[in-house]
């Protein structure tokens, strides 16, 4: 292997071309694949065999945490400073659900968004791919497939010609 690099970045002009190329790359034994698209492309995750995201479980945990915090807080506050309002119960479980509901939503939504950013490694303002010449089109109307340098079958010349055969409009070696 020559100079170490981040990987080879191939450009396609439609989501279908990208998906076809990704399929071929999987079939050819490449495993360290990632795609970069201006909008979520349906079916791409299955082709690349991306693991199912677990954001929903984080959201569930956040929701349960929010509800518990709200319930415990309201009970404790009434325990610590009991006010008798016309003989109504201190632990008013008909009154507490409003704040419980709000905090369930608050904790759940914020934990999901935080988990999404955390798992995606964002914010990360710099990345080797941003040095690629045509990568700025990945947010416009071009679709990119990247085969990473650390893939077992990666070889600069051979992988490059494989991507060109798969229909890439341009192929670029990205520096690490």
């Amino acid at each position, binding site marked *: 292997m020559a100079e170490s690099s981040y990987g080879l970045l191939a450009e396609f002009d439609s989501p279908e071309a990208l998906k076809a190329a990704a399929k071929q790359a999987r079939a050819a034994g490449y495993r360290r694949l990632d795609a970069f698209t201006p909008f*979520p492309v349906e079916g791409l995750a299955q082709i690349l065999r*991306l693991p199912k995201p677990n954001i929903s479980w984080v959201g569930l945990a956040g929701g349960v945490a929010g509800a518990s915090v709200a319930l415990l807080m*309201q009970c404790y*506050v009434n325990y610590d400073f009991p006010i008798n309002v016309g003989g109504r119960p201190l632990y008013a479980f008909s009154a507490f659900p*409003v704040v419980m509901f709000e905090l369930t939503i608050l904790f759940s939504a914020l934990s999901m968004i935080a988990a*999404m950013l955390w798992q995606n490694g964002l914010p990360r303002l710099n990345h080797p791919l941003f040095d690629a010449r045509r990568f700025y089109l990945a947010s416009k109307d071009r679709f990119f497939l990247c085969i990473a340098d650390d893939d077992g079958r990666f070889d600069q010349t051979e992988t490059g010609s494989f991507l060109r055969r798969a229909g890439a409009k341009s192929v670029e070696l990205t520096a690490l």
Partner: protein
Amino acid sequence: MTDRSADILPADQSIGRVSDQLTGIPLHFPAGRRWLIAMVFASLLLLMFVISVIALFTRGVGIWGINIPVNWAFAIHNYVWWLGIGHAGTLISALLLLTQSEWRNSLNRFAETMTLFAVVCAGIYPVLHLGRPWYLYWMFPYPATMNVWPQFRSPLEWDIWAVLTYLTVSFAFWYTGLIPDLAAARDRATTRGWQIFFGVTSLGWRGSATHWLRWSQAYRLTAGLAVPLVVSVHSEISLLFAAGQIPGWHSTIFPPYFVLGAAFSGFAVVSIIAISLRSWFGLTNLVTDEHLDLLGTVLLATGLMTAYGYIFEIFGALYSGDPHELQTLSDRLTGAYAWTYWGAIFFNFVPLQALWWRSARRTGWSLMLISISVALGMWLERYMILVTSLYRDFLVSSWGGFTPTFWDWSTYFGTIGLFLVPFLIAIRLIPLISIFETEELLHEEQEARHG
């Protein structure tokens, strides 16, 4: 997918061109002069708001027309009105995302932006109304040296939790949806300042398939949470009224009545903004007549549901047979403030009937006029609910009246500046229509056409 949603955007435009068009609005702002004029006007209103607040904080809430018995009036009335307007933004972007109504994609960004600033305007009102706003922090449960805690068995305490949660979640949802578009703008930016601004705010988004997968899940689930949140927030506000014993408020119809009225006024304001922005920035290729048609239909539907609330409110009063309820009902229909009741009926429901005709829905100016009428009508409705219930309650000895003072009006018009200034700044700085969702929809349409 129905035929209608398949062709909501003209399919002959290229994805790249749409991206350039939308990122071009902040980067090469096309309507600088008009924006400046609007900004000067909005800043003057904001200045009036600042002056009104300074006067209020110096001299106290006595400068408003509130008194005993009408102790809520403008502050709470405008609070409910603003918050209701905000709700349509969340409903458009979250509810219609979940039902896969793709026509939302051209509207959701500015509708959500509208939500954020409308909630700010709403949230500021109870703070101003506190009388001693510097004690706002007493609403939060913190271990105070006085050993007291907030009273969680009161709807007034629920309020702050509902509004702050709503504001935070709306902001998080708005920003999450914005990240890919900020990245698109970053990649189109040519000057250093814009590159830094969008580079930082887009958090380094690069459109990786793995990222999109997690992003989509987080975005959709947050949308799923935002829908019940809207319903809960406005229901909770209606409980401020319904949980009390005041005749005209103490009714189980209030939560749905309030939520539907909120959606109604909100969709009206979304239509106003959509029509203005579309003609302002030449976006007829993205905000099409078809969009206006759908907005008009939704406006008509929510309007009729609100009308049902009116009917049932009268039925509730009659059916209860309670003398105070009946008296409040007759005060509303014929009393000193009957003009607010009949004004609300007229502005809410009479021009609205034009929307049964397709041509009225598809014409910008007619939908605009009807929407303005609805916003006005809903404002009168909130006025009516507040004042007609309070000014003559149980004890004849405490009957009174309410006349708004100069400071009532100046604060209210000031909040319009408080809404417009950040909204104008937002449309100057960020892509005001969701780029990637428009591209995705265009691609699907083109696929459907070719396949």
